[in-house]
């Protein structure tokens, strides 16, 4: 089956996201479970440039390939990553229909980040560590999500502004 130009584009973008995932896995972080999630910048960019379907493809490929590369495929870490990814994509599917005049990439990024970590905490609480009173750590994780969501959103907004898309009449 020959690859269409769109397939190639998805693959290239997923590779970029994968690169960010791997790079950030190398950064030592003080709290387990808290990481910047830089690959979501790519997801958001694709969402704005090419729509939700392609963003879902890129994010899904990144999650699976990232888990394979990090040796986490089908482990609990992968399940967490997948559940968080699915939920933030669903959140974005809804949030992208918010009026563009008032809601930009930063808002979407924060919503997606909160949905991501919220889902993960829920999965851990219900499945991995039932009764582990993980909910006590919720404020910590949500604060982190707020900060990383803001940072990634600002980065996305910056890229959207300064990186003219290759197609469609763009203007500075």
């Amino acid at each position: 089956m020959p690859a269409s130009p769109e397939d190639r584009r998805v693959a290239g973008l997923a590779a970029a996201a994968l690169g960010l995932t791997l790079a950030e896995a190398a950064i030592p972080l003080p709290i387990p479970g808290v990481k910047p999630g830089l690959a979501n910048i790519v997801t958001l960019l694709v969402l704005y440039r090419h729509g939700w379907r392609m963003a879902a493809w890129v994010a899904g490929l990144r999650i699976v390939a990232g888990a394979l590369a990090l040796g986490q495929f089908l482990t609990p870490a992968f399940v967490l990553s997948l559940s968080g990814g699915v939920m933030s994509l669903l959140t974005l599917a809804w949030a992208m229909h918010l009026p563009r005049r008032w809601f930009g990439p930063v808002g979407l990024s924060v919503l997606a980040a909160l949905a991501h970590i919220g889902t993960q905490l829920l999965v851990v609480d219900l499945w991995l560590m039932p009764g582990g009173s993980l909910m006590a750590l919720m404020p910590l994780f949500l604060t982190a999500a707020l900060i990383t969501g803001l940072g990634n959103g600002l980065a996305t907004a910056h890229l959207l502004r300064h990186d003219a898309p290759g197609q469609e009449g763009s203007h500075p």
Partner: protein
Amino acid sequence: MPSQVKPHVRSLLPGDWLILAAGLALVTGLWLQRTDSLDGRVIIRLEGRPFAEASLRLNRVIQVPGPLGESQVEIRDGRVRVAADPSPRQLCVRQGWIPPGGAAVCLPNRVAVENAASGYDSLNY
């Protein structure tokens, strides 16, 4: 749908501020609730069943009616101890102030006092 709407020039639109503010409010609320709920609880058990739960912050004396008589659990200045107990050997009273995470058990009177101070250490994390 490949939406090619140009993002606005400003990074933060009013709705974004709204989402950020809502998120901040949520997080602040959770932090406040957390310090409230985790900052030292005292759990008193009678005959193995939870009898009372109290905060370490509030100074008070709790009377626990056991089979031998009344045990008195005293909470003062963020500490807790069994102040009086009818048990013959007074082991739980002589134990003194209960350290965070520790417990005093007055076995003859079937009373157990646990200082369930917070403490998320790496072990139970």
